[in-house]
């Protein structure tokens, strides 16, 4: 290779190297690496729904806005998985409350997929047992489905030991809504409170820095 050819080759390769080195700085930084959360590539806008909260008041998409929300879907007749998950979510809130860099704690929301048996008054007492700040919603099955379908959350009645004791198969995942009320991330089982809490802080910081 002559000196002239080397110079031409360098003249071509150097700008390319520079562009490659500078490229990441142009777009948003890569999302944080997370331990338990599955981040949606783009937060998903949710169509409005018409539910009822644990005070018996209407609960719409707008009520999710202005604050981060952890939502868990279950029913109070579930003695094993649901109390385990809600106690775990209460531990997440405790971890977050111990930090001093969060101006506001996320909302902990229990969505009952058993409106037949779970009245608003019953739900209020049930969720407060795990964390006095938790709230609950429920509603007509079709309105519940309108919401859960958009989140990939499933629920289905299954016969129990008697007609009164029916069971409900339900997704065990925890959904994270951002302050715009968009479906932002999903936490699949098995849940670990420490990992969920630290993932949440990473997600929130990234969201605030990059929109």
């Amino acid at each position, binding site marked *: 290779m002559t000196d002239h050819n080397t110079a031409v080759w360098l003249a071509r390769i150097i700008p390319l190297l520079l562009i490659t080195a500078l490229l990441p700085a142009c777009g948003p930084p890569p999302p944080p690496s997370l331990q338990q959360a599955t981040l949606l590539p783009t937060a998903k806008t949710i169509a409005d729904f018409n539910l009822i909260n644990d005070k018996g008041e209407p609960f719409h998409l707008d009520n999710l806005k202005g604050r981060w929300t952890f939502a868990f879907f279950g029913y109070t007749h579930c003695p094993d998985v649901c*109390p385990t998950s809600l106690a775990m979510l209460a531990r997440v809130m405790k971890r977050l409350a111990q930090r001093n860099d969060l101006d506001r704690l996320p909302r902990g929301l229990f969505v009952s997929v058993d409106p037949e048996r779970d009245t608003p008054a019953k739900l209020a007492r049930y969720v407060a047992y795990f964390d006095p700040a938790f709230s609950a919603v429920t509603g007509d099955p079709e309105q519940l489905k309108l919401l859960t379908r958009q989140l990939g959350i499933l629920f289905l009645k299954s016969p129990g030991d008697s007609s009164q004791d029916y069971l409900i198969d339900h997704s065990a995942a925890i959904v994270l809504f951002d302050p715009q009320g968009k479906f932002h991330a999903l936490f699949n089982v098995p849940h670990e409170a420490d990992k969920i809490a630290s993932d949440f802080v990473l997600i929130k910081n990234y969201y605030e820095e990059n929109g």
Partner: protein
Amino acid sequence: MKYFFAALLLSLCISPAIAEQGLTVKQAWIREAPPGAAMMAAYLTIDNTSARDQALLSVSSPRFAHITLHRSLNVDGVARMRSLERIALPAHSSVTLEPGGYHLMMSMPDKRLASGERVPLVLHLADHSEIRVTAQVRKKP
């Protein structure tokens, strides 16, 4: 003699229940029910140190109208509960009933059970023998 009986009573209260047939039941507890919850779950560990396969067929308690053997399963992210006819207790092995897995589904307690209360349970086995244990009501394991 008085002290001997006191000590014996005390040891009966705190030691795991051991049946003659080589089965030991330990760490029996019932999850305290949140207000309004009609169902409770109980958990325990059964060691089968014998050379004989066994099975748990049912559980009864004077404090509950109805107890069924249950299992929680996670199928592609969906939590399901199913009742079971029996829980196999293979020879030389240990079976644990724990949150998210095998459990005793307890319905209709005679009155609300508070943390710390001790509830007698009778485990009915496939060979018609029984094991009596005491489960404590607790918020967590």
